[in-house]
């Protein structure tokens, strides 16, 4: 049930990723200020946006789970958060590389977006110990959903708070997309966002299908064992 449409989606994801990379390296102009290293921006920022979107989407799916009581929504929420945590590790790594290249330090605390992202990421990492230390499957799903909702609401308030506390040094991309990005860069950036989004959705569907399949396999095994004895 989850594998429907995976093939065209994967092809689209691979194609857009290739196009995005081609645009990044051959089409987008080199940044006058930062030079070649600025190109990490086309990986770092889309990953961050998609990861945060994934966290919030996980929260919305969790609301659906609590509303309808259907376990499949909990599974969707879990996999979305799982994928976002993996992307988040990538965001922190590329952010550190970029910081090292442009400010000379692997980590800068006066950069609100990166710091907020770290706090959010640390919080979401607790999703695993919480989820897997609850044994009862129904309760596991419910408690995980409550966590996903609370954490999803925490994301915006945390970004607001960290921004209030720090100086405004981070290049604010989202609010200025129309403003300071030249046309070629903007196009490349938008294609990169599309590529990462498609990649995220593809991986999410694949993981869901695999989780579903292994759950079914387990169920069948149990029935076989019961029949054998």
């Amino acid at each position, binding site marked *: 049930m989850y594998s429907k449409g995976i093939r065209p989606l994967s092809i689209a994801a691979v194609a857009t990723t290739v196009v995005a990379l081609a645009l990044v390296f051959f089409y987008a102009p080199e940044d006058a200020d930062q030079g070649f290293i600025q190109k990490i921006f086309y990986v770092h920022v889309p990953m961050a946006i998609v990861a945060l979107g994934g966290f919030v989407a996980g929260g919305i799916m969790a609301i659906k789970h*609590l509303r309808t009581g259907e376990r499949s929504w909990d599974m969707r929420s879990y996999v979305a958060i799982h994928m976002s945590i993996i992307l988040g590790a990538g965001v922190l790594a590329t952010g550190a590389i970029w910081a090292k290249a442009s400010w000379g330090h692997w980590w800068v605390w006066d950069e609100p977006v990166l710091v907020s992202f770290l*706090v*959010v990421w*640390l*919080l979401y*990492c*607790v999703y695993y*110990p*919480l989820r897997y*230390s*609850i*044994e*009862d499957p129904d*309760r596991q799903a*419910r*408690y995980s*959903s*409550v*966590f996903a*909702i*609370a*954490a999803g*609401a*925490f994301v915006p*308030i*945390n970004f*607001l*708070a*960290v921004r*209030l*506390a720090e100086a405004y040094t981070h290049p604010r991309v989202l609010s200025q997309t129309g403003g300071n990005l030249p046309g070629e860069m903007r196009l490349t950036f938008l294609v990169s966002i599309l590529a990462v989004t498609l990649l995220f959705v593809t991986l999410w569907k694949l993981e869901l299908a695999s989780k579903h399949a292994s759950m079914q396999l387990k169920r069948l095994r149990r029935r076989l064992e019961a029949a054998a004895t």
Partner: protein
Amino acid sequence: MIGVALTILRKDLLLELRTKESVPAMALFTVTVYVLFHFGLDRDSLDGELASGVLWVTLLLAAVIGVSRLFAAEREQGGIDALLLAPVDRTALFLAKATALFIYLMALELVAVPAFALLLLGPDLSGAFPELPVILLLANVGLASVGALVSALAVEARARELVVPLLLLPLLVPLLIGAASATEPLLRGDQSAEDLGRFLGLLGAYDAVFVLIALAVFDFLLDD
């Protein structure tokens, strides 16, 4: 519902008064942490940012103890089943637990803040009035609602001792930012309240968001 909440709250406060399990432990813990900071920082007196940071980090760490003990009595003595079997609205339970935690925190701060002024703070604390109590009050509302939510989330988890601090502390980062930034100018030599409105606004928004979320999702916790 309010009546039920008040009954549970009365039970919790009575239990705390008789056993003295949470608040004295939290107070003892804060003083110990002040001693640790004294040696760790190798400073006899603190002011400004450092003072505000040490005070708030210590209070938040003490809150972790309170939060992990919040359902302790019910869990250890099996009262939780009885409580859940009784026709108790989950919202009432949340209100009772959050209020209990709020009262514990207020009691703790009555000891912890003067102790801080006595042991570590350089400037006189009298300049921090009446702003500091307002900050403490707003922070306690947020701490109490997030704390009650987290302790209910962790109550079924096997790795409870692990989950409570790991879950609570990142969630409290915005609260720490608001409270510590608002307190910092009050603990400086030239005590003046700057940017107070901005950070009080942040604390208020944080409180509102988490009280509403906790009220909305608490129904799904502590079932059966």
